[in-house]
């Protein structure tokens, strides 16, 4: 039975766990039971921005409604008093939030209060609330107070980020600023560790931590180890001993936490990508599983330029319920375009079927034989009627993906991203280049200045020896001519000088991308998405540095790159790096956490890697999720100093 419980726990993804925890909280901290004829209850939900970010990727408004939430309001908005309704608060325990809650208590806004804090509240703040409750004589109205330990945002079944609101605080720039003080660094680390701790509480498992030496990741590891240790020592109040959670606790296997510093691989976040999800994140405004599209509504349709182009903003949710998205988020883009086309066709076929049925009914209705036809068709009609909502939903999804894919395609065409992608892949795999770098940089048609900068940075990062000064000057001139800001390059130069001392630059594994054969291109020309001029590139499996590190650590392979990684086991009583008896078995479950920002490329790469391994799971986390534009911005800020 224990084994069964263990497998069940392993099967429950972090996303499910967090959703269950949220539902439980919304249900006044009683496990949620689905009951078809239960009496309805109603309550209002009050959250702050942090709470909103946590809830929004997991629960839709409809699901909130099903949970009995009539209103969901921000804590710091104007809220009218609603008597006779319990209020569920879901907020961070910050000063201003506490002040606002005290104010609510004084103003007697609601009937009763269920206070839930995203991460642990300190004693003094709790006393502040107690004071306010006493002053308002509303102590009995505070029905429950809970620490939820949910301070992280789950985006996918196996992906999470720490926070979204104050992500500048834990960004790559914040960690790598040269002028950062020790106390500032402490706060950054504390924020990261607090969120990671929440993550492991929700996961219900104590990990074995590995990290590289002498990086920010090591600091995180030390602190996290300490925090977990402290919590485990106090056996009575430990968060890891309850029987509701932690089947992982009793199972034989413990997860491996690999803490990776962004500095080991700077090329990947700059890389142009070719898979759907990463492309959407790279070129569109994709944020907490929601993509915002700006559509210029039909320039051709508007009367002769009389009015300025009206921008039409649309936002779509890309949720795990969306089967198409689930299936294709990791596929290369041309494949996605093709599949959208196929889906569209199958949908049309179904629609035609329904229409045909309708016409038969209409025609046959006049004849004497109508009744027999009718009854023959009743079964069909029933199935058609019941399949209609499904069909509508399908249509909505197809529309969504058509729009998103078209928008992505526009970007690809405008910026020649396919060329960049192919070229960068070649640089990273160190194959011979058929076109000089200078040509692309000085080509005015190809891409934005930012794309050029990215390309050059990747080249600069991944070459073994730096180009000579004269060459560099030439490149710089070309880049400035193309309108690039050279600040990022400044920083990368420093970084490279620094890492060269520390270690040899990581190699990116040999891969090749090939343009698809002529034949298959002819086959694809039927596609409605006019992919002309866009090369149909096929990805070959390659492992990024992060994936390789994980592979080494998970399989206990010996590799100079990872052999000196530090080892922490919070369950061991005395933590000493050398004396700890190490776990020699390969791990079944691993969590990769990138300190200093991650991206969808690495996530996708890890997912692809683990697909080939039976019975293994990987979770990918990062302190913030940025795309290349945001990353370049941070680099240039760093370069200015």
């Amino acid at each position, binding site marked *: 039975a224990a084994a069964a419980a263990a497998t069940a726990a392993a099967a429950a993804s972090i996303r499910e766990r967090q959703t269950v925890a949220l539902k439980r909280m919304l249900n006044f901290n009683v496990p949620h039971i689905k009951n078809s*004829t239960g009496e309805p209850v109603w309550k209002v939900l009050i959250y702050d921005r942090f709470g909103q970010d946590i809830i929004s990727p997991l629960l839709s408004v409809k699901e909130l409604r099903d949970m009995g939430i*009539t209103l969901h309001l921000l804590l710091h908005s104007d809220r009218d008093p609603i008597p006779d309704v319990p209020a569920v608060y879901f907020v961070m325990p910050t000063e201003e939030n506490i002040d606002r809650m005290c104010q609510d208590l004084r103003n007697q806004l609601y009937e009763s209060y269920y206070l839930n804090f995203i991460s642990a509240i300190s004693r003094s703040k709790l006393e502040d609330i107690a004071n306010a409750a006493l002053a308002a004589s509303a102590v009995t109205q505070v029905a429950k107070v809970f620490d939820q330990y949910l301070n992280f945002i789950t985006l996918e079944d196996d992906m999470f980020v720490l926070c979204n609101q104050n992500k500048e605080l834990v960004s790559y720039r914040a960690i790598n600023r040269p002028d950062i003080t020790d106390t500032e660094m402490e706060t950054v680390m504390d924020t990261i560790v607090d969120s990671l701790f929440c993550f492991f509480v929700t996961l219900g498992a104590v990990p074995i931590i590995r990290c590289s030496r002498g990086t920010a990741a090591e600091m995180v590891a030390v602190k996290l180890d300490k925090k977990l240790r402290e919590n485990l020592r106090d056996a009575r109040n430990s968060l890891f001993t309850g029987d509701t959670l932690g089947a992982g606790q009793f199972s034989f296997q413990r997860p491996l936490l690999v803490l990776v510093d962004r500095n080991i691989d700077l090329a990947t976040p700059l890389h142009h990508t070719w898979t759907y999800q990463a492309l959407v994140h790279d070129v569109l405004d994709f944020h907490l599983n929601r993509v915002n599209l700006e559509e210029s509504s039909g320039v051709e349709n508007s009367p002769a330029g009389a009015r300025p182009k009206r921008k039409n903003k649309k936002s779509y949710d890309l949720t795990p319920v969306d089967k198409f998205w689930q299936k294709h988020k990791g596929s290369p883009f041309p494949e996605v375009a093709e599949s959208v086309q196929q889906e569209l066709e199958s949908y049309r076929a179904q629609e035609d079927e329904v229409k045909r049925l309708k016409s038969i009914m209409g025609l046959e209705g006049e004849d004497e034989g109508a009744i027999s036809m009718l*009854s023959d068709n*009743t079964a069909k009609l029933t199935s058609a009627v019941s399949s209609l909502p499904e069909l509508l939903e399908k249509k909505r999804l197809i529309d969504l993906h058509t729009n998103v894919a078209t928008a992505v395609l526009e970007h690809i065409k405008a910026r020649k991203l396919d060329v960049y992608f192919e070229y960068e892949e070649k640089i990273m795999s160190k194959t011979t280049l058929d076109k000089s770098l200078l040509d692309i940089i000085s080509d005015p048609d190809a891409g934005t200045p930012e794309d050029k900068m990215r390309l050059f940075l990747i080249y600069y990062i991944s070459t073994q020896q730096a180009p000579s000064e004269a060459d560099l000057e030439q490149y710089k001139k070309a880049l400035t001519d193309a309108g690039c800001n050279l600040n990022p390059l400044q920083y990368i130069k420093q970084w490279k000088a620094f890492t060269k001392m520390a270690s040899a630059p990581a190699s990116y594994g040999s891969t090749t991308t090939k343009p698809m054969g002529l034949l298959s291109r002819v086959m694809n020309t039927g596609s409605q998405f006019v992919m002309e001029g866009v090369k149909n590139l096929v990805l070959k499996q390659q492992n990024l540095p992060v994936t390789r590190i994980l592979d080494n650590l998970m399989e206990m392979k010996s590799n100079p790159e990872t052999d000196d990684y530090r080892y922490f086991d919070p369950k061991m009583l005395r933590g000493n790096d050398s004396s700890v008896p190490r776990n020699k078995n390969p791990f079944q479950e691993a969590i990769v956490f990138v300190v200093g920002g991650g991206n969808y490329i690495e996530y996708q790469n890890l997912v692809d890697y683990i697909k080939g391994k039976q019975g293994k799971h990987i979770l990918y986390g990062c302190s913030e999720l940025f795309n290349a534009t945001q990353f370049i911005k941070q680099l240039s800020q760093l370069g200015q100093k």
Partner: protein
Amino acid sequence: MAVDITLLFRASVKTVKTRNKALGVAVGGGVDGSRDELFRRSPRPKGDFSSRAREVISHIGKLRDFLLEHRKDYINAYSHTMSEYGRMTDTERDQIDQDAQIFMRTCSEAIQQLRTEAHKEIHSQQVKEHRTAVLDFIEDYLKRVCKLYSEQRAIRVKRVVDKKRLSKLEPEPNTKTRESTSSEKVSQSPSKDSEENPATEERPEKILAETQPELGTWGDGKGEDELSPEEIQMFEQENQRLIGEMNSLFDEVRQIEGRVVEISRLQEIFTEKVLQQEAEIDSIHQLVVGATENIKEGNEDIREAIKNNAGFRVWILFFLVMCSFSLLFLDWYDS
């Protein structure tokens, strides 16, 4: 995992309280109050709306309990054949149907009333939204309970239909006894049990086989005069033919019944959809009316514009003519 720190909170309330006392800080209301008074519920006027909403919910809850309580008896349509076990007659069932329907209607009326009242009072936007959502919840609840009812009613109807189908196959005398049993069940039930139970399970052919000898006895009773073997043979053939006809008729009827059930199910779906669409159609209607108004206004405007345009043209023409005249005049004057 969530950690309950309510006790911690209560404890800190106490510490704060003792501290305040020690410092002599006056805390509004709570300072002289004993523990009971402290934890006493602060008197708040119970809102009219929510108490009424709760009332409606409890009504619906009662209906649900009532339905669930009688569900078993209600569904069991064969019960009157086994009178010891059956506790509910058809009239009682009808009574339940009627009561439930009346109850549902009153509930939905109450909700409707609440809705109008909730919107009549002037409230802030949020309160209004909240109330709408609450009423939606209640309506949804009522719908779920109604579904419970309609499900068991559908089962009942189906069972009755099944039963009728079986009883049609049974020979005349039996149906007669059955009619009598329905009025006075107790006396005849054992004998009926033995007759009907096999009938429900066996195939129609067997039942037909049973009927044949009875037809034979009829023939015996009717005429004293002997029938010739040819005549008997003829009658038998005719019987066979009749039975075949009956069989095919019966099959058809059964098919038709199945279809009718299906159609009724479809009908149900359609009604639901139509009801759903009602609101939408209403809003569309409103929009259409608005659009018509707009178009009318637009037409007016256009007409106005045309008129203005024409007037303007006349003026321009006039001006030009005047200009040319003045030019002519100047020319004439100059020369």
